[in-house]
């Protein structure tokens, strides 16, 4: 009786209150056919070797290369309810930018299990996310094993490197794109800010929030030691050589000392397993730069 009552209560909450941020990591009723909305979640399912459960992915799921074989439900922030449901999933897992909210509510109303994961831009956040996905698909023990074997060693090494005070003095500027005149740069409370903190360095622009265009004079004034840019953002500059000579960054210590680094965007800001590996790679690289 009480069990049924609890079930009714949960259903009531799911159907009528429609909280967007569910953030529960309870095991799903039937995780056998999953539609994924969010690149990092697809990455995690592959990481846990549970990719056979995936039936469809969104456009931000582009790693590993193989994900292209799945049907696409469109862009994570602009989904359509029918599209998501068309492959008859038993479970939908989405990142917290999954939307629009009305569509998410529509999907919930159909009674399909839909879980939206919380996003936290830190290595702990990544580990929590992996754990959460593991619990949802009912593979708790296996997930903890994989985390302990594959992620924890990286995290421990990264934490040790981050404690090194030298890296704290390195000012990093994260450029999203440079196509619209002034480059668009990650400020406080962005995924880029979280990523820079993971590396153990300092964001050169933590005086404003969000992604904003920044003028050349301010960039010179901030004097970043290292510039990070996504491959897509750097695409206009055939190679990094041109990028170093671009007028907006030319006079920064980063360009003068040839420390502009371009990597895949999702690899840095996806906050899946790859992000933590990339943070360690960059942390080591920064240490070398600092020592030279």
């Amino acid at each position: 009786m009480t069990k049924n009552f609890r079930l009714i209560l949960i259903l009531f909450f799911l159907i009528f209150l429609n909280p967007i941020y569910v953030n529960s990591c309870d095991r799903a009723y039937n995780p056998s056919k999953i539609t994924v909305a969010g690149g990092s979640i697809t990455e995690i399912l592959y990481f846990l070797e549970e990719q056979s459960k995936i039936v469809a992915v969104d456009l931000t799921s582009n790693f590993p290369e193989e994900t292209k074989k799945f049907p696409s439900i469109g862009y994570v922030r602009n989904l359509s309810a029918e599209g998501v449901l068309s492959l008859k999933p038993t479970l939908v897992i989405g990142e917290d930018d999954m939307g629009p909210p009305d569509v998410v509510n529509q999907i919930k109303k159909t009674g399909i299990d839909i879980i939206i994961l919380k996003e936290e831009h830190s290595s702990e956040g990544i580990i929590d996310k992996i754990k959460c996905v593991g619990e949802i698909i009912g593979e708790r023990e296996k997930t903890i094993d994989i985390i302990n074997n594959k992620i924890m060693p990286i995290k421990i090494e990264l934490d040790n490197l981050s404690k090194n005070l030298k890296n704290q003095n390195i000012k990093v500027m994260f450029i999203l794109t440079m196509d619209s005149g002034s480059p668009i740069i990650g400020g406080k409370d962005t995924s880029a800010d979280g990523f820079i903190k993971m590396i153990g360095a300092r964001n050169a622009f933590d005086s404003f929030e969000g992604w904003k265009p920044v003028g050349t004079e301010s960039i010179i004034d901030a004097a970043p030691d290292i510039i990070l840019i996504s491959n897509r953002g750097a695409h206009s500059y055939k190679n990094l050589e041109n990028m170093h000579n671009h007028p907006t960054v030319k006079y920064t210590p980063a360009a003068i000392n040839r420390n502009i680094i371009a990597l895949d965007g999702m690899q840095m800001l996806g906050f899946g397993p790859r992000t933590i590996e990339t943070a360690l790679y960059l942390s080591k690289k920064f240490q070398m730069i600092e020592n030279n």
Partner: protein
Amino acid sequence: MLSIINLKFLNSAQSFILFFLLILLLLVLIVSFSLGSYSFPVLSILMGNTSAIEATIFTEIRVPRVILAAIVGASLSVSGACLQGLFRNPLADPGLIGVSAGAALGASTIIVFGSSLTSAFIFSTFLLPLSACLGSGLVILMLFLLTRGFGHQGVTYMLLVGIAVNAIASVGIGILTFISSDSELRSLTFWTMGSFGGITWSLLIPALIIIFISFLFLLPILRNLDILQLGESEAKRLGVNVKSLKYRIIFASAASVGASVSLSGMIGFVGLVVPHLLRLLSGVNHTYVVIGSALLGSSLMVFADLLSRLLIQPAELPVGLITSAIGSPFFLWLIFRINKI
């Protein structure tokens, strides 16, 4: 240059306003040259005792940026004034004949497809402005062909074709917006709000030349534009070559607006409102309105860019946002004030 402008058509109030606007522009320029997010005394630069980095910031970053703001402001306002005169329609602005939309389409194409195209080019910094210029050029060519040399059935027809061409360009931009990624979308959005960031001398000088030549084409015909206000057939009878007037205004506007928009992104409002401000102040004489538009347009734009650089530094506000924010309430105030009198 004065020989091609006939200043005798100005009355004393208009001459005074123009003189005042010239002083205003000089003041705004001086303030803009001396302030920026990287602060240093400009006087020391002029005297030559300063660090290398400060001199570089001044000559390579601040000066070209302020000059770009000034010429973009001037070219948008002057084209607006001339097009309003040509179409005898107070709502005409450079956007109306589709130049801005064409430029936007060109720029968006590069923002979205740039990654697959750029491998063939070395001077990628030039690619976006070039493509924007090409876009506005194509729109004008289309307009020219559709209206059989701008002549067919008078200016109203051309206005309608302009609107249609505009809509076609918007569809292209819409499709590009739809297929763009997150970061590309952000670039597109900020591009449509305008920015003078990232300008260099090598980009500025070609634009400067194009805009200067277009102005030379426009200046001798300002009196004819006055006569055109009587109507096309009356103007013809009074000896005005209406066809050549059309050609001059449309090609000069397209060239100067195309060159501006390709470097600054879309900055609305200025081209529409600045000429009206001058008309509300002191009459509709085109010699006065067009020259005044050049001066007031540049002052407004340089001032807006100054605010864009300083208000939320180190970040930047899009300049198009500021031109509308300071211009529109002032415009409303002016309309109500004039109505009271």
